[in-house]
């Protein structure tokens, strides 16, 4: 069978060919199962699939970050063994990761020549030469960047260009882009596509990982679809319909349309006023941020990452302390309150970084799902645990939140990403919270879990909880929010009383800072009649 394939593929100019790739991770998850994958020279090839379908793993294998358990890789027709990214780069494979691998405190030019700097007399780093080389590449590939700017000061879109340039400077002919548009606005995405097409014209091969149908249709020549660690086949992009792609990816008809009854906001639960925060590098991250969240509504916080959303959430849960301003839940200030006290106020949080804050990876599901209530009276009998009640509660949560696991004793790190997030959500949403802070609640998890978590958030908000939803996913914000604020440069740039009137292009303009609302409109986010701070000016 494999012989036949070789004969067929000999006619094509295949730059990458991966045969029968199987990858089993040390935690027992088989992320790839006998996957075949090939890319023609000079094409833009989409690798599609839901989160957790194994597409990132496959690309990590190709980039030498992971070693396949079984299978072979051919690059330019030669069998390649890729024990490390260095080996992959030597073969002309470059990768741009979803999370940028840049040093924030260094300049763009320094980042680009990192590890291979031009030197004077073989010892001193020739910074001028580095800047010159950056300019050269930047012009040749039509990827405009500012070589002298520090990476922490440049926008996300430019960071991405720096990453691409980094790969090109190292001699990559095959570029792997891992969900490059996940952090970009609609406008930035259009710009990126233009640049990628330009690269294609110059003979580069691009593997584009994504699960966004419209992007794939616009940009790519062919596509490979993955599901549950297996390849579902290779197709010409022009010859396959979006419905068909969607069906192959998900394996069933999914409507990510959400049924959401109209919000009936009650009294204010969270009241944030004039919050200011300057970070440890003296960068102003929050400036006079004021808004309120009322019971029964979902307030979305939209914005490109790095515009103060993380700092806002951290302050609300006392992981950072603001220089000035207030944040109150039903009259009680959250500032400088211990996390235990914050939780006692009925605040729960789904953290953005679930592996750092959300779970103890070596602990069992039971230990994780009960971590906020373990010292409650109902689980303790004198000094000892009431083990049976704990078993019952954790089993109930596992069932209610549909956590797929073998038993409550299973280690959390053995679960898939979506199920790990369900563990977090099960804990945070089952403690009858007054305020739910959901920070990127569905990032990087499968559709099923996403759908489930979104529905839960709506359900709880309609039952009277106040929900603050922070998300970089424009579609998510639009779908879930009742009202919406946009953050740009640490300020509230816009407030929409009714998020239903928005679409992604409009929202993108506000997120990029091309448009903003006037003070009166923004002040409405506080839901207060008297606005002395506005009228004074």
């Amino acid at each position: 069978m494999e012989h036949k394939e070789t004969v067929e593929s000999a006619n094509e100019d295949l730059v990458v060919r991966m045969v029968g790739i199987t990858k089993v991770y040390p935690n027992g998850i088989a992320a790839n199962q006998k996957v075949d994958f090939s890319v023609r020279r000079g094409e833009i090839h989409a690798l599609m699939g839901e989160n957790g379908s194994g597409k990132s793993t496959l690309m990590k294998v190709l980039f030498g970050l992971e070693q396949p358990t079984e299978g072979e890789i051919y690059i330019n027709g030669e069998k390649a063994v890729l024990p490390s990214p260095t080996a992959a780069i030597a073969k002309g494979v470059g990768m741009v990761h979803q999370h940028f691998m840049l040093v924030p405190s260094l300049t763009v030019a320094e980042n680009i020549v990192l590890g291979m700097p031009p030197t004077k007399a073989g010892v001193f780093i020739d910074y001028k030469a580095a800047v010159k080389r950056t300019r050269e590449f930047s012009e040749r590939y039509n990827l405009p960047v500012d070589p002298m700017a520090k990476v922490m000061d440049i926008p996300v879109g430019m960071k991405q260009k720096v990453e691409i340039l980094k790969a090109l400077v190292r001699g990559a002919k095959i570029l792997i882009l891992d969900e490059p548009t996940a952090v970009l606005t609609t406008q930035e995405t259009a710009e990126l596509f233009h640049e990628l097409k330009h690269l294609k014209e110059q003979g580069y091969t691009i593997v584009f990982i994504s699960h966004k149908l419209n992007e794939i249709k616009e940009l790519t020549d062919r596509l490979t679809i993955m599901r549950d660690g297996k390849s579902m086949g290779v197709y010409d992009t022009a010859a396959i319909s979006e419905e068909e792609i969607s069906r192959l990816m998900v394996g069933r008809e999914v409507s990510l349309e959400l049924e959401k009854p109209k919000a009936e906001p009650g009294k204010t639960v969270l009241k944030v006023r004039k919050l200011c925060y300057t970070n440890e590098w003296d960068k102003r991250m929050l400036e006079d941020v004021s808004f309120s969240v009322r019971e029964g509504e979902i307030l979305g916080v939209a914005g490109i990452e790095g515009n103060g959303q993380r700092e806002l959430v951290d302050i609300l849960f006392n992981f950072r302390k603001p220089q000035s301003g207030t944040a109150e839940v039903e009259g009680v200030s959250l500032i400088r309150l211990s996390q235990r006290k914050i939780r006692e106020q009925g605040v729960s949080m789904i953290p953005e970084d679930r592996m750092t804050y959300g779970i103890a990876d070596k602990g069992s599901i039971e230990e994780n799902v009960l971590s906020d209530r373990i010292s409650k009276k109902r689980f303790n009998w004198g000094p000892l645990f009431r083990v049976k009640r704990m078993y019952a509660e954790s089993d109930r949560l596992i069932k209610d939140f549909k956590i797929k696991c073998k038993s409550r004793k299973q280690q959390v790190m053995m679960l898939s990403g979506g199920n790990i997030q369900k563990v977090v959500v099960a804990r945070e949403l089952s403690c009858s919270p007054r305020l739910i802070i959901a920070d990127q609640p569905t990032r990087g998890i499968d559709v099923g879990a996403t759908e489930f978590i979104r529905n839960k958030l709506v359900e709880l908000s309609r039952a009277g909880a106040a929900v603050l939803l922070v998300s970089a996913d424009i579609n998510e914000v639009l779908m879930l929010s009742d009202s919406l604020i946009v953050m740009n440069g640490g300020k509230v740039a816009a407030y929409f009383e009714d998020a239903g009137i928005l679409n992604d292009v409009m929202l993108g303009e506000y997120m990029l800072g091309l448009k903003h609302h006037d003070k009166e409109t923004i002040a409405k986010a506080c839901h207060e009649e008297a606005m002395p701070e506005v009228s004074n000016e």
Partner: protein
Amino acid sequence: MNKFWQNLKSILVKDRRMMMFSIIRGLAAILIALGVGAIFIFLTIYINTDDKSQTFSKGLEALKYMLIGPLFTTKAGVVSFNTMNFYQILAAMIPTIFTGLAVCVMFSANQFNLAGEGVCMTGGFVAALCGIYLSTGTALDPFICIIVAAVVGGVIMLIPAFLKVKIGASEMVTTLMLNYVLMYLILHFLNFNFADRSKGSTQTYAFAESARIPALVEGGSKLNWGFVVALVFVVIIALFMFRTRWGYSIRMIGINQSFSQYSGMKVGSAIVLSQVIGGVLSGIGGGIEVLGRYSTFLWKELPGYGWTGVTIAILAKNNPIFVPFAALFMAYLNKGCMLMSTYCDIPSEMIDIIQAAIFLFFAAEQFLSKYRQKLVVKSAKEELAHIAKGGAENA
């Protein structure tokens, strides 16, 4: 129902496989370590004997003393069980069970506190002083002495714990230093305040007869009731770690401190608590050892039980239940090496070489990881096959 059993079976098969792996890995580490030890034994003999042809037989002789000597004696070809040695081994476990438990608790909270050594010595010293000066002459004496030793141990550990929590000083550094501070303080007081001048060597007066911990078996084995107390503490600490909210906090902080804080646990208190418990246990260990084995306090250097405790905790993977087994292993090995050095001209430092080798292979995360990966792949494939078979239920 049938499906349920099948699922259960598959879980058990996978877990059993991983458990077997842990056991095999541990045994392999011990075997390799003994192998390394054997190489050194043969080398030593080769260098020290004039008749090189004897090397092999002498080496085997030495190994025999080390491996089976602790429990069996051969006299004129007759192998017999050596009860005395057996009791001595059990007696040697008493202090190291306590220090092992102490290290388990502290390491579980990710606190690399190494002051068990110094605190153990202090516990012994304090217990001895109580036995001399606070004796009531009743059967309560040992309890009073041990409780005082425990309290002092706990209080001492407050120092590194607060330094860690309040000013972020690494407990590893402060406790390593603390050991020597404690040792020289004790030596100072022993020399200048409490020494019995009528004796040839530096030691305290004998403590009251009533303060001594009674022997468990007759004879000079030194096996005393402290052994039973140690086993009781194994159960108490196991319950504490796995069945109380404080033990839970300690373990979760050890896994992920950010998570614990975010979940609303009192991280600082748990860090302090873990080290205080470690101090209490080490103090008790030292106290029981001195009151059970000697009639006067005569340690003039760190006793070494704290270090052995670290080895034991690592062998036991910080699980209190495994501590007695690890302590038994260490005591057995120690006894074997002592016999070997007595009868075969091998330096008793050999135990340090073997210990270090065991350490190395236990601590090395990647040791046998390829074998583990193979097992994981096998399990995953079985699981996939199982799903493929019963695939209908998901569709």
